[in-house]
């Protein structure tokens, strides 16, 4: 599964990405996970199966939903998991969004 995270400059989400990768490795799952700046979402269309937004950019959800449409499910990362850099919880959120793979 290809999981893309987006925030402002892709810096703070990249912290979460490395924790998610660790968690996926422990669980023996082969996910591709990366973070981008929110302006790059449109260019990445088709490259991701699920899109997670950092809670600090949740105000762009409506706009991003229009851009992405039916191509991938989108959600805002649950704030407390994001703050704790809880890779396992965010990974679970992504998997649930995809209907549990």
């Amino acid at each position, binding site marked *: 599964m290809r999981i893309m995270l987006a*925030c*402002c*400059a892709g*810096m*703070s989400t990249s*912290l979460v990405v490395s924790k998610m990768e660790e968690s996926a490795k422990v669980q023996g799952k082969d996910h591709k996970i990366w973070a981008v*700046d*929110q*302006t790059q979402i*449109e260019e990445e269309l088709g490259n991701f199966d699920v899109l997670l937004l*950092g*809670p*600090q*950019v*949740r*105000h*762009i959800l*409506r*706009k991003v939903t229009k851009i992405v449409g039916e191509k991938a499910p989108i959600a805002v990362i649950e*704030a*407390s998991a*994001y*703050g*704790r*850099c809880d890779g396992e919880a965010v990974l679970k959120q992504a998997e649930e969004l995809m209907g549990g793979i």
Partner: protein
Amino acid sequence: MSKISKKFEDGLLVIAEKVEENKYLGSIKNAFTIFMPFVIVGSFATLFNSLICSPTTGLAKWIPILEKIKPAFVAVNFATMSFMTVPVIFLIAMQLAKANKVPEYITGVVVVASYISVIPEVVTVIVDKQKGTAAGIPGAALGAQGLFVGMIIAVLVVELFSKLTKIEAIKIKMPPSVPKGISTSFNTLIPIMITLTITAIAGNVFFNVTGMYVNDFIYQAIQAPLEVVFQSPAGIIAIVIFSQLFWFLGIHGGLVISPIRNPLIAAAIAANVAAVNAGGVATQAVTYGFWLNFIVAGGAGITLSLIFAIFIFSKRDDHKMIAKVAFLPGLCGISEPIVFGLPLVLNPTFAIPFILNSGIATAIALFATKIGFMPCNTVDVPFGVPVLIGPFIGHGWQGVIVQIIIFAVCTFTWAPFVLMSNRQAKEEAKQA
């Protein structure tokens, strides 16, 4: 939460969404995001210039020949900062064209051509005390002083051009066997002609009626007053606190205000570099470097100081745990772990310092600039450069001291609220 604060929260969220969804503001914001590396590279050329070519502060002190390559670094300054209006309006036009679903590159070129058509193509020169004119484009029209007029023209021209390209009647019909690329290029011909003719005539009429070029007029009427407000203590502190209100809701405040902030900080650093290159002194305090190094030092709301305050005063294990996680990101100015982990979002206990601290930091840094302790910077640093190193590159050792003062002061403004939180936790434990 009370009704009033709920209304306030919803109102701010609506503003943030509206800014994000407004295609003009969105295009301007994205264009500056794309262009930002060039501003930073341009400002670094100033740094290299003083480190390499200066006979007093650089390598040229020992290797005099290095002074000869000074024009190369000045050229990098010019190509990035003193020329920024052209690439920026090209990028804005491309972003808007994408939103309007019209060809992007051609729209970009149309906007640049339209802009060039309304600015002067003669410059005033003085030779042997005789005033005259010569062919050339004034620097003011190409550099940051052209940003606002450029943005206005970009918006108007893209809308006009988009409407024209969608009118079937002025399309040249081609047989279906003609490749699509060829028919596209023919079909843009008439809209380009109409667009350029209208803008050039409008610019000409404006000049004949007012005696001023439109770029000079917009600069003086709109951009210069905005710059004054933005650089004034009251203006910038109000903007900073407005931005922090968004952060209090857990929304990236810097991102929301960036459509208005980014053109003004770009103009400020360009003015500083131009002043120094001309042998003068930089005077514009509020730049991108100033924003990162002082206003949001260690994270918007000076959250790094909160981490210090928690390490020193907190008796809460949950807070100490989050502070440990948030410490390293905080050193690079990333505040999200503590903002969402503690959380600071919608947390009334920490609301006052979270909203006001960046304003206090701004006041401290502006004061240091005002009394002449800290110079205005000509070198901007990118986001993510660690604390203390960032201000050293941008503002020299004085910048490092100012940043340390900000951290110290804000650790004390956070402290009473950390103690309050200790008491709250104690009472909750009692009740449980």
